[in-house]
């Protein structure tokens, strides 16, 4: 009795259950170790870039990071009141710009905002050159004439600590200034104070009560400041360019001040985020919906052409004697091994109006010399060249599925009285459908992301959305928009895949066997 109740033990005395579990765990760990290089590889080269792309399509930290004070000040500005923002915004913007110029990040912000409002790139570039030469230098001259101590960076350092509460602007600007000087490789205790510090001090002093400081240096400065001609930063910016006085410029900055923005996604579907909410783009600017539609439509046409052309070839390959089939197989694979560019360029030679096909047609008098066919630089060109390029991706899965259909099925059908056609259509074809499914998914997904071939032979109406993505990645540098377009394309493919799974069933897809 006791022997049955007590757990079964292994030779070393541990319970069998625990021992088995441990063995299993070790097995699993070993299996995991074996797949881990691949897993790591996929994570690093596939999942991480996709996650990065998803993030880039909404990321917009540049505005906040470059001009934080302005963003803060703009929150209190009510654009509905009309007119440009108050002096506090210009004051904050002046400070931000001085530091941004020193960090050389203002032009980058300009290019970012130029995507939303044309003209801002040059406005920021131009202002960057002038912002260091503002009349705020008058403040600096006045204070340093008053007391030499202002020229000593240590004075500022001490004040920022002791009077931080009564001089909030000065303390804040001084903190950033120290950081910027350090990043430049300078020493904040040796660096001569910049105009922007004096401007902050002036603003602080003007708001402080007369004689309200314990420090005589500050009280003297306070008295002197009261007698100074104030420098209007609004006018200083207005003198660089009148656009700074345009409320629309500030509304754009305000609209895109957030750390995250839906702007790129809206742009990808021909909408735009304005200060008044989401709006349609102008008729002449709408392009992406059209391109998405065209990409899907042409990929579909290419997939269907591949089925129509590939099916008979695969059928022939699967049913010919091995020796002949192998030679045919090489003919299928040869273009597969040839460079994509070479094949595309060959299509140019063949298809153009003075090209081989047109020359033959004219020589055979099928086509008149004056009305040669236009086969390239349009949708026809893209469809012809891409069908050819993607054909092996249809033929190979079809072939491997057809190879596994036993010839006895068709023979059985025929022996039961079916005609050739009925035997093919009712018996052979249904068996080959998984191959069509696999080939179609392959061809369609490859086609949707193609860009070299459409670029070379597609002219204007035969280009895909991927050509625009490539343009934004390598030419316009609008990576946010490229990421948003890429994300939409990715999800479009996933949705199609899911629909396919629901309708046909992904289990029905066979790449062979």
């Amino acid at each position: 009795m006791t022997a049955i109740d007590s757990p079964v033990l292994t030779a070393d005395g541990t319970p069998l259950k625990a021992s088995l579990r441990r063995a299993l765990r070790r097995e699993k760990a070993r299996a995991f170790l074996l797949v881990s290089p691949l897993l790591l590889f996929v994570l690093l080269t596939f999942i991480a870039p996709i996650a990065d792309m998803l993030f880039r399509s909404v990321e917009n930290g540049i505005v906040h990071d470059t001009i934080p004070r302005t963003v803060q000040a703009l929150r209190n500005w009510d654009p509905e009141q009309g007119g440009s923002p108050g002096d506090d915004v210009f004051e904050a913007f002046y400070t931000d710009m001085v530091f941004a110029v020193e960090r050389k990040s203002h032009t980058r912000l300009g290019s970012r905002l130029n995507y939303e409002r044309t003209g801002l790139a040059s406005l920021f570039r131009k202002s960057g050159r002038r912002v260091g030469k503002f009349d705020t230098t008058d403040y600096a001259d006045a204070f340093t004439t008053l007391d030499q101590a202002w020229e000593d960076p240590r004075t500022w350092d001490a004040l920022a600590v002791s009077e931080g509460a009564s001089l909030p602007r000065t303390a804040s600007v001084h903190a950033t200034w120290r950081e910027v000087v350090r990043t430049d490789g300078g020493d904040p205790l040796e660096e001569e104070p910049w105009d922007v510090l004096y401007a902050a001090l002036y603003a602080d002093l003007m708001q402080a009560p007369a004689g309200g400081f314990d420090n005589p240096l500050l009280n003297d400065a306070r008295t002197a400041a009261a007698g100074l001609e104030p420098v209007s930063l609004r006018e200083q910016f207005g003198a660089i360019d009148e656009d700074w006085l345009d409320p629309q410029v500030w509304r754009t900055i305000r609209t895109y001040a957030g750390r995250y923005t839906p702007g790129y996604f809206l742009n990808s579907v021909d909408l735009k985020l304005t200060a008044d909410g989401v709006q349609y783009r102008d008729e002449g600017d709408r392009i992406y919906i059209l391109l998405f539609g065209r990409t899907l439509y042409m990929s579909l046409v290419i997939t269907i052409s591949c089925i129509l052309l590939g099916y008979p070839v695969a059928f022939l390959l699967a049913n010919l004697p091995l020796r002949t089939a192998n030679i045919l197989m090489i003919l299928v694979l040869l273009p597969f091994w040839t460079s994509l560019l070479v094949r595309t360029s060959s299509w140019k030679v063949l298809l153009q109006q003075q090209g081989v096909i047109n020359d033959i047609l004219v020589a055979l008098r099928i086509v008149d010399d004056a009305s040669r066919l236009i086969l390239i630089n349009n949708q026809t060109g893209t469809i012809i060249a891409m069908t050819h390029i993607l054909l092996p991706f249809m033929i190979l899965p079809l072939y491997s599925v057809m190879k596994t259909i036993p010839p006895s099925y068709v023979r059985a059908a025929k022996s039961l009285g079916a005609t050739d056609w009925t035997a093919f259509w009712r018996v052979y074809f249904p068996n080959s459908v998984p191959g069509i499914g696999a080939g179609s998914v392959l061809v369609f997904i490859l086609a949707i992301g193609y860009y070299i071939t459409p670029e070379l032979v597609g002219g204007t109406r035969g280009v895909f959305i991927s050509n625009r993505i490539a343009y934004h990645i390598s030419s316009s540098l609008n990576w946010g928009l490229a990421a948003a377009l890429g994300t939409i394309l990715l999800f479009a493919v996933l949705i199609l895949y899911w629909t396919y799974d629901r309708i046909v069933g992904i289990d029905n897809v066979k790449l062979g066997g």
Partner: protein
Amino acid sequence: MKLKKTVLAAAALALAVGPTAVSAQLADDITLVSWGGAYQKSQHRAYVEPYIADNPEVTAVWDESSYEAVAKLRAMNEAGNVTWDLVDVVASDAIRLCDEGLAMEIDHDELLAPAPDGSSASEDFGDLIVSDCFIPQIVYSTTFGYRTDMVGSTPPTDVCAVFDTATYPGKRSLEKRPINNMEWALICDGVPKADVYDVLETDEGQARAFAKLDTIKDDVIWWSAGADTPQLLADGEVVIGSTYNGRLFSVIEEQDQPVGMLWDAQVFDLDGWIIPVGLPADRLARAKDFVRFATDTQRLADQAKYISYGPARMSSAPLVGQHADLGIDMAPHMPTDPENAKNTFLYNYEWWADYRDDLDAKFQAWLAQ
């Protein structure tokens, strides 16, 4: 106000550069980025070969990535691993790279050699220094070539021949981007050259340019690679087409095709070097040493022996000689030759830096319709 800072910086620079120059801590490898093809070859023969003859320890590697230099540099910069030392880009890309903080701002007079007559580099290059990061190298132009056997007895002399489908029937090729095409369209629609950008800034002006382009839209093959138009001309696919003048030179003089040059309203553009930011000290020193040599008066003049692009230095122009292989005088083939430059158009970089994104979207939408 910032005098002290400047003095300190200059002192620091002198300290940094001083020992480098003396103990010659220069990297032995230099990676140059260019456009490939005949252009890169001309740079190799005119700059790199003589430089290596003087500095046999140096190995120069070419990377043909200038087409996507801006994107690649940005990616390298984000990854914190810049592998290029000197990058050849067009002026508009240099402005972009400078705006993005990816190219180094330089002091032209300090970095570059003075002209033989002693005038400073910035005087010698003059207006061609369009950005603080840009070291000009050549002046090239985008202009038209036409099939001499397809234009009858009246070869075109005016850029508006492109829009004249009655006199010159057949296809034409234009670049698949708004730059240059919009300007030509407005000029041929009667806008004076000086007002082109003012007109193009307005919605009506843009509509006007598109309306003019609409008249030939069905006859245009749009190109995206510089080699397209020469091939289309050689095949007789187009009767007239725009491309870079050096490409046309090689079609006409080297390949002997029945093609003629139409210099009217050629658009000047610049190509030159930029130094990426974030180079280690030894590589930076090598890049600076090389670029000083490669952009001196004689080297720029030498490049014109191999390709028909005009040297960016004024002092190089009188030194331009004959083609190294063909033995023909190169001066008459330069876009800057007075005979060719009777009617030229200046490409406004600043303006396009602002309007490029906006107009490109409109242009693509117009093409797609």
